[in-house]
């Protein structure tokens, strides 16, 4: 499990960089990051918020994928993976919502604005909540697994709808131009590297936690069967 240590060290580095790297108006050296219009110093939160949002999306897609695998094979190990992934997705979704809300507060004045991205993350939160509400309400392992997988698929399909119709209905606050504008990457390279590393770090963290959670859940099942 050398992966553990690599991950740990990597996360420490990321945290230091994101907090320590100077952001100034006129970057003199290569390690100084320029301002993003409208964000200045507060831009640091981007290193946590964006990866969290990305990871929760990844977790949802993985949960969906495992759910489909369960329906195809009826092997309960896929259900364990699906629900574990959803649990992590919920965690990262909460992180993304909170960091997003903090960002919104110091940047645009209020904790919640009903901007399209905010609404999307909120809907994702609702879907995760509904998913777990469903799981606790169903008896029988196989039944629970089937119904959860079906719900994951149905909600997974409505999310793209959401993403497409939102911009029509509400105008947004999210600074899209900071990262990509007209197809070209306009973010300062060093900043981009840190951001992508953070994304990689969060992703690695997700897979590590998923692996851990699946193994714990499997132990649980074996243990409770021994009691029978």
């Amino acid at each position, binding site marked *: 499990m050398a992966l553990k240590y690599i991950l740990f060290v990597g996360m420490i580095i990321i945290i230091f960089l994101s907090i320590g790297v100077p952001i100034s108006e006129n970057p003199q050296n290569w390690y100084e990051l320029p301002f993003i219009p409208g964000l200045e110093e507060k831009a640091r939160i981007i290193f946590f918020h964006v990866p969290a949002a990305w990871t929760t999306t990844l977790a949802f897609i993985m949960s969906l994928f495992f759910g489909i695998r369960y329906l195809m094979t009826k092997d309960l190990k896929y259900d364990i993976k699906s629900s574990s992934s959803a649990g992590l997705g919920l965690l990262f979704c909460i992180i993304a919502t909170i960091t997003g809300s903090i960002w919104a507060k110091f940047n645009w004045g209020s904790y919640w604005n009903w901007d399209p991205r905010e609404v999307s993350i909120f809907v994702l939160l609702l879907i995760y909540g509904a998913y777990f509400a469903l799981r606790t309400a169903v008896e*029988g*392992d196989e039944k629970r697994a089937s119904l959860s997988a079906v719900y994951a698929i149905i909600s997974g399909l409505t999310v793209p709808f959401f993403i497409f119709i939102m911009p029509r209905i509400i105008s947004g606050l999210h600074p899209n131009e900071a990262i990509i504008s007209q197809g070209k990457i306009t973010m300062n390279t060093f900043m981009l590297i840190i951001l992508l590393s953070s994304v990689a770090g969060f992703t690695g963290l997700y897979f590590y936690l998923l692996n851990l959670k699946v193994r714990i859940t499997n132990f649980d099942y074996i243990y409770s*069967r021994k009691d029978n």
Partner: protein
Amino acid sequence: MFLKISANGLSKAYNRREIFSNVNFQLKENDSLAITGRNGAGKSTLIKIIANIISQTKGEISISDKEKEIPKSKIFSIVGFVAPYLQLYDEFTALENMRIIKNIRNVLISEKNILELLNKVGLYKNRNDFVRTFSSGMKQRLKYACALLHDPPLLLLDEPNSNLDEEGVKMVWEIIEEQKAKGILVVATNEIEDSKLCTKIINLNKQEE
């Protein structure tokens, strides 16, 4: 119809606890199978698997007609099923229940034949009474009428005599004999008398070894 049922290595587990395992049988026309065992041995579970109401955990079961396998989605059309835990529609009369089932099943049967069937199970005079007013014995008789509506090649009976009086038991006996003559019969039962009527027996208790 040249009906054949073949089951190999059937086993069922619920919530990771195994109910029965490695059940095998082959049935052809005019065969009759009795499923016996203690309470909780899995008799109802097995007969439900044959009816395709629930699916098995392991193993295969296939029903074929003239060597061509009948797809699982069509099994309901050749199966007649009677069980104490089957419910009919309380808010309708006996006759309405029959008509509704006839419509949904797409059975080409005349109203006259429906009435004859009701008569056969002894419910002719109750045909226009609501099922919620029926006694459990009358409901059981109606279940037989509904099960025989489409003249099923495969008849599955779970505890066939439950709730029935002497006359009812005689009626069941007649139905069993008729079914043995024209199709396949499977009976899940605690009563030794019933199992004596069948050509083959499976005892689910022995499966645990």
